[in-house]
């Protein structure tokens, strides 16, 4: 097989997998709790900066993971308590509040790290011979990690006790309360899981993109498009959205350029909104 085609194919698989992980945090928060967290991209940014800090301190790359989880869980819990919980019944106000939060986080990052780009060295440099072509090891590893994370999360959500309780809470919050589930606490925990997933995704992509305070905007929009196209509230929705958006974007960007890719994705999202507003996998 033509190595160029293989490379492009793996690129598409990479784009889809990484997009699934990037959108996962928002899928949890928006899909399960119904909260559109515009600051989702900023939690990804936090993860990326944690990776940067880890490297600049000379720590092994993996340390970025617990560092990010610590920061994102504390911040996520605080945000949920201060601005999400009081506004659960007012989705528009939640939107404005999280927009304000995203602004704040961007400005804090700018104040600490400056507005310029930072770069993080790839922890696993080099390429490896794969399916007849040379492909970067780190990207291949990210594909594996992405699939692993999504799979583990899906299995856990479907099989575990807590997963069932979250599904119960989402499906019928009154009955969940009646059976003793503290919906407030479970929702807060779910929110924190969402922000931590975003941070983790940030650690993953940090070596491959310029790390700068505005990086989150692009991610939150793409995640949002994935969910519009794929449908909220299900894993198959997330994956189908990632396939469509990620696939479309990488193919068009490869053929023309990144701006066109972005344009195509935006048009696609609006088309879906127009023709099939509940997404490919519409939840009943």
């Amino acid at each position, binding site marked *: 097989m033509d190595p160029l085609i293989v490379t492009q194919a793996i690129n598409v698989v990479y784009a889809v997998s990484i997009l699934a992980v990037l959108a996962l945090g928002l899928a949890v928060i928006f899909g399960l709790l119904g909260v559109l967290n515009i600051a989702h991209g900023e939690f990804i940014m936090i993860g990326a900066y944690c990776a940067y800090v880890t490297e600049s301190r000379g720590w092994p790359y993996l340390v970025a993971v617990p560092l990010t989880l610590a920061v994102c869980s504390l911040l996520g819990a605080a945000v949920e308590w201060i*601005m999400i919980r009081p506004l659960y019944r007012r989705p528009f106000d939640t*939107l404005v509040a999280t927009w*304000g939060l995203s602004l704040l986080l961007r400005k804090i990052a700018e104040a600490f790290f400056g507005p310029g780009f930072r770069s993080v060295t790839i922890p696993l440099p080099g390429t490896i011979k794969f399916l007849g072509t040379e492909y970067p090891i780190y990207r291949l590893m990210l594909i594996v990690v992405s699939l692993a994370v999504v799979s583990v999360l899906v299995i856990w959500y479907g099989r575990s006790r807590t997963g069932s309780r979250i599904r119960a809470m989402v499906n019928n919050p009154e009955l969940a309360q009646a059976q003793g589930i503290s919906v407030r606490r479970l929702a807060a925990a779910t929110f924190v899981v969402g922000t931590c997933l975003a941070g983790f995704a940030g650690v993953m992509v940090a070596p491959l993109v310029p790390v700068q305070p*505005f990086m989150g905007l692009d991610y939150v929009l793409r995640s949002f498009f994935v969910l519009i196209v794929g449908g909220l509230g299900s894993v198959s929705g997330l994956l189908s959205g990632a396939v469509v958006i990620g696939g479309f974007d990488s193919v068009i960007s490869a053929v023309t350029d990144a701006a066109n890719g972005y344009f195509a994705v935006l048009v696609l*999202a*609006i088309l879906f909104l127009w023709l099939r507003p509940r997404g490919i996998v519409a939840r009943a």
Partner: protein
Amino acid sequence: MRAPSIVVLIVIALPLLLGEFWAYQLGLYALYAAAAVGIGLCWGQAGFLPLGQALFFGLAAYLSGFAFIGFQNHLIIAVLMLPFAALASGLLAYAIGYIVFRRTGESGAYFSMITLALSLLAFQIATSWNSVTGGFDGLKGIPGLPGLDDLSDNYYVSAAVLLVVLALAAWLYSAPIGVLWRALAQNERRLQLFGFDTNQLKSIAFGVSGLMAGMGGALYAPEQGIVTPQLAGFGLSADLVIWAAVGGRGSLLGPVIGTLLVGSLSSELRDTLPFWEVAMALFFIAIVLIFPRGIAGLAEPFLRKIEGRKRGRPFIAAPDAPTQRPPAALTLHDVSVRVGEVTILDGLSIDFDRAGIFCVIGPNGAGKTSMFNAISGELSGVSGQIGLGGSDIVGLVPNRISGLGVARKLQIPSVFPDLSIADNLAIALWSGRAAKVQLLKPRLRRWTSPMLEQLQSRYPFLASGPRKALELSHGEQQILELAMALLTEPRVLLLDEPCAGLSPEETDAVMGLVRWAAQRLGGAIIIIEHDMSLVKELAEVVYVLHNGTLLAKGGVAAIQADAKVRAVYVGGEK
């Protein structure tokens, strides 16, 4: 009035007071302020938030820049093109609003995200389309406005544009369309049930805001001489929202105060104070969560003194309601609705007479409110026919069905809480009577009708015009909502538990009102009720629903004697 003259005086005097540099600054920020007023219109009035407003500012700036460069030898033509640049932005905004609102309905989040995406896209296009836009460095060498030399001359032009924008906003806010926007922000569903196309209202609001941003952007090009992609991008979009919020999005001057004060201050302080931007972000969050009225809210008592008292103007008679339309019979034929696994309505067939008071009763889950929802067009997936005066209304959108003469009083009292009683009633009068163009005329706010006068003599509180609806007691809100439904002089009036939660006296009052309305309107009044004493008093015919279908129909005595009905209400061995 005194207020506008004071504002104009201040505007003229400023450069003399503050000197050339500040005149220049304020001139620039006046253009941004024009865009911020547009955000105040969308967010503070109509209740949706555009996060990418700079798109329209930048678009007009580029278009204006092309015009000035292209016609640099005949600058007067370029000046004539300025309004068109602004108009282009306005039309684009209307088009985007039209496409997005129709599909996202009441979800403001989707709209906000899409406007954000569009702004980023505009930035991308402006940056990469080098040949046309000059790329990242921007469109340079734009000639200035002809005949102006001084830095402060630009200020006067900018200030004039800002004043035009403010005048436009002031007019629209006091016109019926402004009232409708504010109503939309409070209770969109209710406004649709009065026959107003809320998607179009939002699109118009967005279009006007785009026009306002376009007016600012169009002037930016000749005044500053250079147009860069940042003018269409996220940074300016975000700043506009912040300035509008901090200044006070709900008031006319708030966004201007925010832009001029905060915006121009920021540009000075952001380099000197390291955490200025962080502080601004925190301040924004605090305003949004705690004090949404913003700086203008602080100045409100002072501003009110300047505005002076509004003289009470005389009332104007409204045109006749379209009940030149003949009464229409409402019929349901084999209507079924399923939501997922659950069958809500199951082959429901009822023929209501065209006139009279009818009661619908039945156990919980029988489908009574669902039947009303199907009639008013709020349920999807309805099979069967629902006929009004002979034509099938299944599949029509709620505001069209209301326009055909169906009025509804909802189960939970649903008025526009933050609007005055007078405005609430006016909305009911405009419903079905005001042509769209008339909604731009402030005098419509003084409409009255014979029926309104009769209602006001029965219930004096309905005449306490400026009081806000939320100040009314629960019972009074029920009566207000009922009055509003009656004012549309409908052919079919659907009342969903009109006496829920009312005291016995209030219940008597409502019953009297219903009887009066039946006589006065001559149409059909269909009431869902649980209270059998009310049903006995009012109903000419009683319909019993069970499991989504009609179980029995007849006079009160007949229903009481019906064995099937007893079985349903009492249960028993099956």
